[in-house]
């Protein structure tokens, strides 16, 4: 009605474009170059790890058959059987997932589907705070709080048990599951919810039948990332699992009972003292490297299983179609209530942990503690440690963002489906490798092969390697959810592949990139093992390194680790909690600062 007059008045029709047409702009040619560079970096890291393990395994005779069939591990008697460790690994990580995945999924659903948009971000941040707590603190909390509970509830003497380790791990895995799942849910278009609800489905029915099937792929990715996290964790498991070797029980009953007894996982075996006692050649060392190889195989196997089409069907038929039930209203209210409860759980945990940590970490409340350098064994503050940690985390963040993104683009866009499948498995395996192995490999590579001393750069590299798979997998999962029509429309408008990547794929994956980076860096910031071996010292170095390849730094997580290990006097323990609290506060600040950025990124995703 009004438009036509307007058209005549101001816009005299569309002129031919010939006047404007020139060379095509913005080839986005840097995209393939960057992807290539990232691929090279990731490939080099993989090669380093493999070279380390292969050179280790071949440095002495390994009896592979006995390794995977025998139940007795005793280096003194040259008996090397890893069955009990494999059992421990399986029990601990699967139990952890069995607890964390249902709760995490339910919490994610409660968070994204039942919470008004304006509260979502705050609640999500509260859950992600759980990721900010460094492993050593989880371990100490487990020692202090969980063991007593275990011994009272199950009559486990001491409370050290596979079950305790699984519970600690499940809390550590929870934020990963929740965060990645929330991203997946955010990608389900609102029209799906609307259509479901318009057909008379109740809230839980909409969630269960309309939303969940579409988010399932991404939520599974969250679970798989959680699995990698569980498999790779060392320090926290260390402190509550008991770490006693023992022959494998032969009866079902015995196996079940072993869950309530101390045990050992592949990771704790590798992270324990043995690698240092074994030297760097001979049967013992070779067998330990073989253990690393076995662990990688276990992870790869679990990954393949989790990726199998059976679990991750993106379309197709629902196998057990739901049936109409009686009392749909009551069921709906019950379902909503339980989802909300599941959401409350991680948030209460986060609050509880914050209270416990703050209570013990009183030194952290003193500004002087933040601003003065450490003195002697346990005096002074943690100024240099803060600077060192920030340096390491920032540089590792840059590396993980670049490498993770390129890896994700390779998997999600450039590789053929078959290659992509293998690359995804490799990435997950990298993510599940215990950081201790990364530390040893880094120590071997930078220290022995390159002849560097301890160096912050090596630390950056190794921490980056810890965070890279998390970023890569979060982003890959999101690329997989990109609506096909969007790609088609972009292509129909004449965009080149690199331009499609630059303008459709990259913007779409930004939320996952941020989530992956936050989760990855939160984990990297709490990581001790790679730093202890390759990058930090207890004292005598500043926060800012004095050089590049031969300049160690000090860092908060390793500081906490050292203080908590053997400190004789109460001052050291106080300092340890103080430093841990500082670390948690820093990561919390990081999360809070990232909130507005995320808000912007997520608003753009519709």
């Amino acid at each position, binding site marked *: 009605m009004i438009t036509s007059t307007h058209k005549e008045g101001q816009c005299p029709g569309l002129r031919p474009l010939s006047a404007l047409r020139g060379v095509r702009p913005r080839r986005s040619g840097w995209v393939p170059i960057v992807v290539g560079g990232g691929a090279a970096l990731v490939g080099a890291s993989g090669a380093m790890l493999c070279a380390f393990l292969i050179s280790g395994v071949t440095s002495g005779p390994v009896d592979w058959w006995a390794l995977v069939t025998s139940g007795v591990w005793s280096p003194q008697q040259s008996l090397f059987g890893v069955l009990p460790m494999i059992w421990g690994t399986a029990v601990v990580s699967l139990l952890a997932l069995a607890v964390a995945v249902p709760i995490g999924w339910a919490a994610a659903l409660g968070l994204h589907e039942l919470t008004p948009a304006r509260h979502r971000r705050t609640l999500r941040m509260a859950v992600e705070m759980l990721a900010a707590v460094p492993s050593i603190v989880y371990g100490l909390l487990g020692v202090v709080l969980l063991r007593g509970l275990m011994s009272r509830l199950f009559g486990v003497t001491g409370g050290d048990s596979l079950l305790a380790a699984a519970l600690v791990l499940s809390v550590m895995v929870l934020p990963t599951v929740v965060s990645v799942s929330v991203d997946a849910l955010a990608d389900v278009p609102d029209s*799906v919810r609307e259509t479901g609800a318009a057909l008379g489905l109740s809230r839980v029915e909409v969630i269960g039948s309309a939303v969940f099937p579409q988010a399932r792929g991404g939520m599974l990715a969250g679970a798989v990332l959680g699995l990698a996290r569980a498999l790779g964790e060392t320090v926290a498991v260390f402190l509550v699992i008991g770490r006693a070797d023992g022959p494998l029980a032969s009866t079902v009953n015995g196996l079940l009972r072993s869950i309530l007894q101390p045990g050992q996982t592949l990771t704790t075996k590798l992270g324990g003292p043995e690698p240092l006692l074994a030297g760097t050649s001979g049967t013992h060392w070779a067998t330990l490297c073989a253990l690393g190889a076995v662990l990688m195989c276990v992870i790869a196997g679990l990954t393949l299983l989790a990726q199998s089409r059976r679990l991750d069907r993106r379309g197709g038929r629902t196998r057990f179609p739901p049936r109409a039930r009686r009392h749909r209203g009551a069921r709906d209210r019950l379902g909503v209530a339980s989802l909300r409860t599941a959401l409350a759980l991680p948030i209460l945990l986060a609050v509880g942990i914050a209270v416990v940590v703050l209570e013990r970490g009183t030194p952290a409340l003193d500004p002087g503690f933040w601003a003065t350098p450490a003195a002697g064994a346990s005096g002074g503050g943690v100024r240099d440690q803060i600077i060192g940690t920030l340096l390491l985390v920032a540089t590792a963040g840059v590396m993980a963002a670049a490498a993770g993104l390129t890896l994700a683009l390779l998997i999600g866009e450039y590789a053929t489906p078959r290659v992509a499948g293998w690359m995804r498995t490799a990435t997950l395996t990298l993510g599940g490798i215990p950081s201790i192995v990364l530390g040893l490999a880094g120590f071997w590579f930078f220290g022995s092969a390159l002849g560097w001393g301890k160096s912050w750069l090596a630390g950056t590299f190794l921490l980056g390697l810890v965070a890279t798979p998390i970023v890569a997998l979060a982003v890959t999962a999101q690329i997989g959810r990109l609506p096909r029509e969007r790609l088609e429309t972009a292509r129909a408008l004449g965009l080149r592949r690199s331009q499609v990547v630059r303008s459709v794929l990259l913007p779409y994956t930004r939320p996952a990139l941020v989530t992956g980076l936050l989760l990855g860096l939160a984990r990297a910031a709490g990581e001790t093992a790679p730093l202890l071996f390759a990058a930090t010292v207890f004292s005598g170095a500043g926060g800012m390194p004095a050089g590049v390849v031969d300049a160690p730094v000090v860092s908060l997580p390793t500081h906490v680790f050292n203080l908590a290990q053997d400190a004789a006097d109460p001052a050291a323990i106080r300092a340890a909690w103080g430093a841990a609290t500082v670390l948690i506060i820093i990561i919390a600040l990081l999360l809070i600062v990232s909130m507005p950025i995320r808000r912007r990124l997520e608003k753009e995703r519709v």
Partner: protein
Amino acid sequence: MNAIAIRDLTVSKRSPKRTKDNKGRHPLVGPASFAVPHGEVIGLYGPSGVGKSTMLRALVGLLPDGLDAEGVIRVLGVDVLRQRPSALAELRTRAVLVPQIAVMFPDGIIGNTLFGLRHVVRAPANQLRKRAEEALAEVGLWDEVRDRLNAPAAELSVGQRQRLALARALALDPEVILLDEPTSALDEASAAEVEETLQSLRGHRTLLVVSHDIEQLKRLCDSLVPLHRPTSTSN
């Protein structure tokens, strides 16, 4: 009694900046008042972007985040703007909206047709399936899909999806059906078939049809309601 009654309904956008309006709101639709008696077919029309779809969403309490409705909406005796979510879900089994864009769930063609049915209607599986197949036939889709009932519904053409969306709503046999451009993607023959089916509901079901095809509305409806742009917007 009226199946649908609307008084002074306005839908407005919550403005985050609290500028435009005295209440920090920006009106999108209305104010509108009309009623649909039981068993009648009413047509709603107006230019693109005037707020027809938004209005239908408001009627069954499905406004997207950020939009608020004010006024009075009564559908089948239920005061929509003052209901708990579970009561609204209950209402939506009796007053079904067929949205303008037909969304397919990641499921087969038959699975999609059964989608609402199997949640809402308690009956043996084979009866439900029979009903779904009949509904597909009613909208003229049966012949096109009978030999690939388990193929992913996402592969259907746009017009096929539109008919499927209609079929799964009809299968529920609701008292009120809100149709948002039910034949916009259909050729004449298919549209005629759909119209015939809708005609057959006249008298015992209440229909509110949004369409830009005035001729079609004239054929189908007992009376027509025009929708106008809210007066306070800039244009």
